[in-house]
């Protein structure tokens, strides 16, 4: 039985894991870099160990150091969160060697899932349809171009080591392919020190629909419904929802069965996600398995009533699945907005720095997983996800309107955020009608529409802005004159 879990992560996901462990009476061990000494996960864990400098390679990716803390803290299990070492099969193997319960799939299964080529082959064998593309790795840009011409442009270049949308380029012709090939290679080497590239047909107006899957050590497999994650920028998810507006009961069950076959095919254990592209004609193509807990798992928790971190721990303890497929019922609708520190108008460039003040939304059907607190800092060393704002409703409309209200209520001082963009998206008729696709932002000119919305906002706030400016001058005048009274209640 797991009694003490080391969480090899930071930010909101470290807090998320701590919360479930605390409720289960399981002790937690946090690790932190120089940059994170004042972070909430350090304060809320049972114990916290410093593991190195700010740069991930010197702390959160430092396998030896983390193993050392595992052993010295007496933790009996490790939760990798997402990102960092979560899908590193070398690390999973290191844990196995040291008899540490790694909360996730076996190193072998992870390796198979992570190797897009081998995984694709396994899927084809299991009867799970995949996207047309190179049968394996391409040798070089020339080889990639040959296949691209074979299956027809546009195609996607994907690093097999990528993940979460990094290490992917869409190219439309031979010229773009050569530049793209180099970028993907560069990003992959920068991220994991190596590179290997696949080519895949790029499908237009596709939806990203994924399934939560769970498989115990006794071979019991279930899917916990789908999530639609079509609202993306740079191939990274921004907004997710469940159920998908285009998945009916029949489709849910049919694709769900394929998902269970996929999990069986790679001998998966614990929780994972099977990602699909859904073409405009309704066909589903398997893309990959994310061999970890997903950022967007809370929407599944809302509609299933399950605590997915608890389920992970139960499975890691060797317990049989506590329910059967037919016991699961979807209850209501959930949406997640990833609140990123980024400037929409600077092509989503990161925005970092101190956050002197924050107001975090709450209320019925609202959940916000975040590392923010008044006085915290958004670090440039880690990714831009500051918070996950999740709402639930009995109807889609209720979850959507609650999200809009919660976005209004969310105040983050000091950094640019994706909140204004989400207000424009959630308020659009295209989103309301469920007219989603992975190119949603471009297709419907959302960034321009945001600019329009902000212009209107400026009109509305103009008089208040003038009042603020007037108060500022007057305040200084009064300070200079040594008066200053009457300025603070």
């Amino acid at each position, binding site marked *: 039985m797991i009694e003490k879990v080391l969480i090899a992560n930071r930010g909101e996901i470290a807090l998320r894991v701590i919360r479930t462990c605390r409720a289960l009476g399981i002790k937690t061990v946090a690790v932190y870099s120089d940059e994170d000494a004042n972070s909430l996960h350090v304060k809320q864990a049972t114990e916290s160990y410093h593991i190195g400098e700010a740069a991930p390679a010197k702390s959160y990716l430092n396998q030896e150091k983390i193993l050392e803390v595992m052993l010295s803290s007496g933790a009996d299990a490790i939760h990798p969160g997402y990102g960092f070492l979560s899908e590193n099969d070398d690390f999973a193997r290191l844990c196995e060697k040291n008899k540490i319960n790694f909360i996730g799939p076996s190193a072998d299964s992870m390796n198979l899932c992570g190797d897009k080529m081998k995984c694709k082959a396994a899927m084809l064998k299991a009867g799970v349809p995949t996207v047309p593309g190179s049968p394996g790795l391409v040798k070089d840009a020339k080889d990639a171009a040959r296949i691209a011409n074979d299956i027809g442009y546009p195609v996607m270049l994907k690093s097999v080591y990528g993940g979460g949308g990094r290490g992917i380029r869409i190219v439309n012709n031979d010229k773009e392919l050569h530049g793209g090939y180099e970028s993907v290679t560069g990003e992959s080497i920068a991220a994991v020190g190596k590179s290997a590239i696949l080519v895949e047909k790029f499908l237009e107006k596709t939806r990203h629909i994924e399934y939560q899957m769970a498989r115990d050590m006794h071979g019991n497999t279930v899917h916990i419904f789908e999530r639609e994650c079509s609202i993306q920028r740079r191939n990274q998810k921004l907004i997710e929802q469940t159920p998908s507006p285009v998945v009916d009961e029949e489709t849910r069950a049919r694709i769900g069965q394929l998902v269970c076959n996929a999990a069986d095919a790679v001998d998966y254990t614990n929780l994972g996600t099977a990602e699909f592209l859904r073409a405009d004609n309704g066909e589903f193509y398997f893309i990959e398995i994310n061999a970890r807990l997903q950022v967007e798992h809370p929407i599944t928790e809302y509609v299933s009533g399950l605590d997915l971190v608890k389920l992970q721990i139960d499975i890691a303890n060797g317990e049989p699945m506590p329910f059967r497929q037919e016991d699961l019922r979807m209850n209501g609708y959930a949406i997640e907005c990833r609140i990123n520190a980024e400037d929409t108008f600077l092509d989503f460039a990161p925005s970092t720095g101190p956050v002197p003040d924050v107001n975090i939304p709450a209320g019925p059907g609202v959940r916000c997983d975040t590392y923010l607190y008044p006085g915290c800092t958004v670090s440039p060393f*880690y990714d831009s996800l500051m918070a996950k704002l999740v709402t639930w409703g009995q109807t889609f409309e209720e979850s959507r309107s609650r999200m809009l209200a919660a976005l209004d209520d969310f105040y983050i001082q000091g950094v640019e955020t994706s909140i204004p963009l989400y207000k424009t998206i959630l308020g659009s008729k295209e989103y309301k009608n469920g007219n989603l696709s992975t190119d949603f932002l471009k297709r419907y000119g959302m960034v321009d529409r945001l600019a329009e919305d902000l212009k209107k906002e400026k009109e509305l706030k103009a008089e208040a802005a003038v009042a*603020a400016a007037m108060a500022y001058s007057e305040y200084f005048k009064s300070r200079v004159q040594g008066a200053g009274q009457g300025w603070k209640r």
Partner: protein
Amino acid sequence: MNYKIQDVKKSFDGVITRNLGGGEFIIRINDAEHNLKILEMSTKGIEFILDQRYHRARYLENSTSEMSIVIDNVPVTINMHTHFDDIVYKNSGGGGAVNAQTSLKSQIPGKVVSVTVSEGDSVKKGDVVCTLESMKMQVTVKAHKDGTATSVIVKEGDTVAKGDLIAEIK
């Protein structure tokens, strides 16, 4: 004082007409009187109720004639001038000066991973000058105008803050 807000057509004349004490004021904007009640005030920001509506603003940069604030999450640039300034401003052909700006500054913090332009190179607007890495992403800094890079300040491996000078383009 006259106030002009970027992207807003209307301009505003503002004057404080009465200090009611306890942080409360009567102000006039154009032809209407408003009640301004200040809840919190510092050089960094203000929380106030204007008539019956609560607002909070953060003061970013400001000079005697321009002010950047974020009001209720909406970023706003305010130009301020007395009516006398107004005349001088118009007569000097002001307003179209942006293109004369030579400094290319970084709009994000990050680490310089490569520099593509050398001193003396001629560049076109949109050309990549250097590439920064921040939050695991690579972001390019592009020339803001056509011209010659008279100086390139950053080199590979440098860390730059938001607003730091990258290069001068003349």
